[in-house]
């Protein structure tokens, strides 16, 4: 009985761990046709930036994209909000944040 319970718990845990990844795989991204002209232009600009990156960095970004898609919606929203804040920084604030980031990364 105890063994059966342990197996059930294990199966449930594995299923719970597999769900986000599977959802990320299954969740269709937005189609190109559904983007607004402004969004298309922004995607095109970023595509050109991506094309200029070394292949290793491109692969890293693709891995991050998969990770990002696998995140819970709240976490994705948090990152987007943080990005909006970061984007709103003036040059001085941004430079200070990057300096803090270097410092924080060194301590980590």
């Amino acid at each position, binding site marked *: 009985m105890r063994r059966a319970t342990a197996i059930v718990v294990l199966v449930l845990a594995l299923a719970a761990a597999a769900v986000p990844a599977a959802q990320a795989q299954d969740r269709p991204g937005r189609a190109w046709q559904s983007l607004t002209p402004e969004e298309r232009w922004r995607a095109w600009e*970023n595509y050109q*930036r991506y094309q*200029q990156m070394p292949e290793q960095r491109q692969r890293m*970004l693709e891995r991050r994209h998969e990770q990002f898609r696998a995140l819970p919606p709240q976490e994705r929203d948090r990152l987007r909000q943080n990005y909006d804040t*970061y984007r709103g920084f003036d*040059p001085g604030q941004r430079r200070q944040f990057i300096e803090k*980031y270097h*410092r*924080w*990364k060194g301590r980590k």
Partner: protein
Amino acid sequence: MRCQRAQQWMAAAVDGELASRRRRALDGHLAACAACRRELAVTDRMLGALEALPMEAPVSAGLEQATLRRVRLAAADEAERAPGNGWRSWFPLPAFAVVTAAVLVLAVGIARRTGEVPAPVAVGSPSRAPGQPMAEARTPARPKTRVAEAPLPPEPPAKLAQAPDLFMDLPILRNMDKLRHFEAIETTTLDDEPGTPDGQEPPSNG
């Protein structure tokens, strides 16, 4: 444009977040100013390396602070010896790059000594092929800020059509490390003296 303004815009340019008009102005300045081109390349490589670097070995706050103090003293000595360097004499980023490089070298050295990092970390250029000379890798090969000159094609390239989200979210993906730990980074202190006494826990991850 003066170097001072160019320096202010570089971080945004590296993140791909500079507005088109400013980017063109910055590009114009970079085309004529070798010092700023070098600065941009250093900033770019440093941020790229930091984002990609797994920090496998903890460095104690005491050791870090001692290293930072020594590097800053050395940088101050150097600045005193060369007083007529214009914006370079007060702009903090180059000195900061030196400090960061010192911390990185220290951390990577410790990590490699403990055997936790399996391969050498190419801080200078992650794309450098094995055996490629370092001097060549140091050369800024790609004008990062020159994009979107080409018009939007009627049919997008296959990769773009397949996964437009990847490219829509590219700035977030590039800055993902910063954004995940945004709050912890914001609360990090920049003083020479650590915010916590030596030996205490570093800032949390999140």
